[in-house]
């Protein structure tokens, strides 16, 4: 075993995902404690060009046609091969659509311990995970021999994992990637939608607290009065009350408006990660312990059904008068 930290770089269709840089930043923190190096692992086909700004001591590049697009099967085999050969102290994955498909399977496959939802490492090397919708943090010692980690965003800034100095890239032969049971058929592009919420300066966001489809009109009215655009959390979109193009969060869009008014949204990590670029977050939520108040600048626990209609009237008054 050695003390190096492996980071499985997440990339999709020629673009390195922000979580990869966040992982590199976390890996440096951890490596300081273990005394090892930070090694970025780049799996794919013709992906060496993605290595340029990775803040790593070395990039291990594994090229294979079966890795051209992400599938859990091929990734598990490829990472298993590297892990067994190099025995790093930890392997970091994103707590994402990519990393979560791989890390747990690998844990069972290799009999290695796994820690999920890690947000940051403490200076002593302990992990701190974020669970229960962001309401609880859990701390512990990094398990041995090789700890598999899935990392959530928020603990480090992507810029901390970027470097102006291109890292050294080492080609590594891919292990046998046969007997694969998962194959990509095609990508289906997201629906464009009538507005791009990522570019809107004023967003009125509704969450499960809105209760029914009919109540969406409360947000519509306020948005119309203020000149903003309505968007939503996942449960609202899953109900079909608003289209996917209005989804804010991990599976939707990241937004950075001047003002983000969150109505009946708890601020779960999968939602919160996509709104921290907002200039000012204002939250209306009856639960004083809702995590949204940890990132909002202004908040109120007034019931949305009491407050929103009154607020809309007053906005209209202010605009009219």
């Amino acid at each position, binding site marked *: 075993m050695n003390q190096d930290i492996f980071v499985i770089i997440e990339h999709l269709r020629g673009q390195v995902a922000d979580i990869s840089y966040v992982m590199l930043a976390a890996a440096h923190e951890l490596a300081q404690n273990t005394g090892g190096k930070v090694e970025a692992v780049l799996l794919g086909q013709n992906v060496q060009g993605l290595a340029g700004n990775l803040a790593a001591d070395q990039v291990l590049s594994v090229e294979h046609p079966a890795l051209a697009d992400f599938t859990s099967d091929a990734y598990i085999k490829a990472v298993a091969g590297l892990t067994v050969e190099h025995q790093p102290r930890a392997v970091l994955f994103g707590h994402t659509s990519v990393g979560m*498909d791989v890390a747990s399977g690998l844990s069972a496959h290799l009999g290695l311990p796994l820690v999920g939802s890690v947000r940051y490492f403490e200076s002593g090397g302990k992990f701190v995970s974020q669970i229960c919708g962001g309401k609880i943090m859990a701390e512990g010692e990094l398990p041995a021999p090789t700890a598999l980690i899935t990392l959530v965003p928020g603990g480090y800034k992507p810029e901390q994992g970027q470097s102006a100095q291109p890292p050294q890239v080492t080609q590594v032969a891919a292990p046998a990637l046969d007997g694969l049971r998962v194959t990509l058929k095609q990508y289906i592009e997201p629906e464009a939608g009538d507005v791009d919420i990522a570019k809107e300066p004023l967003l009125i966001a509704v969450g499960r607290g809105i209760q029914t489809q009919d109540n969406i009109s409360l947000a519509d009215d306020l948005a119309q009065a203020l000149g903003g655009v309505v968007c939503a959390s996942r449960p609202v979109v899953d109900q079909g009350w608003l289209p996917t193009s209005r989804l804010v969060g991990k599976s939707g869009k990241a937004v950075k408006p001047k003002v983000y008014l969150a109505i009946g949204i708890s601020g779960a990590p999968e939602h919160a990660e996509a709104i921290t670029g907002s200039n000012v977050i204002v939250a209306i939520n009856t639960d004083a312990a809702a995590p949204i108040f940890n990132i909002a600048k202004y*908040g109120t626990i007034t019931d949305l059904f*009491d407050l929103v209609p009154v607020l809309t009237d007053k906005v209209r008054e202010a605009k009219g008068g």
Partner: protein
Amino acid sequence: MNIVVPVKLVPDLVEELTIDASGAALDTMWLRLIINEFDDHATEQAILLKERSGGQVTIITPNAEGVDDMLFAASARGADRLIKLVGDFENGVNNHALARTLATTIKDLQPDLVLTGVQAHNDLDGSLGPLLAEYLGMPYTGYVSGVIVNGDKAIVRKEFPGGLIAELELKLPAVLGIQAAEQPPRYVAISKVRQAMKTATLEEMDAPGLNPDGGPTIGRMFQPEAAEKAEMISGNADVVADRLIGIFKELGVL
């Protein structure tokens, strides 16, 4: 087609969560448990598949307070078999332990598809689905929001950020981590659940020797502290609305 849906209960996040005297676990005393939201979607997806092409849906869950009601509700929605795993679950088990014991039981059920929720909010050692897949020797794909079964293959829609979808083909049998069913989980009338209580059978199966190897040990739990807590505006709706108007004006959006 034989579909198995492992379901677990998780703390209701609307309730206050407190940490117990050990300092390293949630206080279960006042914890209200509800079905994991994504397991609810997995159940719905299983029933939709059965309605489209026939088959049997089996719900399987570790025993805990409240699971009977959850199982009867699943039956009222269309589940055929309801299995309660009986073992030492009172103080909670991690997903590695749960996956090992579930794999043993599920293997005997010879499923074509196992649908789990993509994650549970209290997972600390990875999500259940991919662990289960590995112990069962099946392929796994998570973040799934659409499934079509075609002979011995499943075509699934896997979500990536920003609304991009990958259509993937998996050889069956397979385990899928369901993010969202193709339709929102259906509502069932209480009367139908009551009916299920009278007619449905709960099968009990033993889950001996739970082995948590592979999960981390938690030294301490704590509630996160905000770097800067929101400035809270109190008062009645009128007062709060006035203050918000003022804030909107300050910020130049009104």
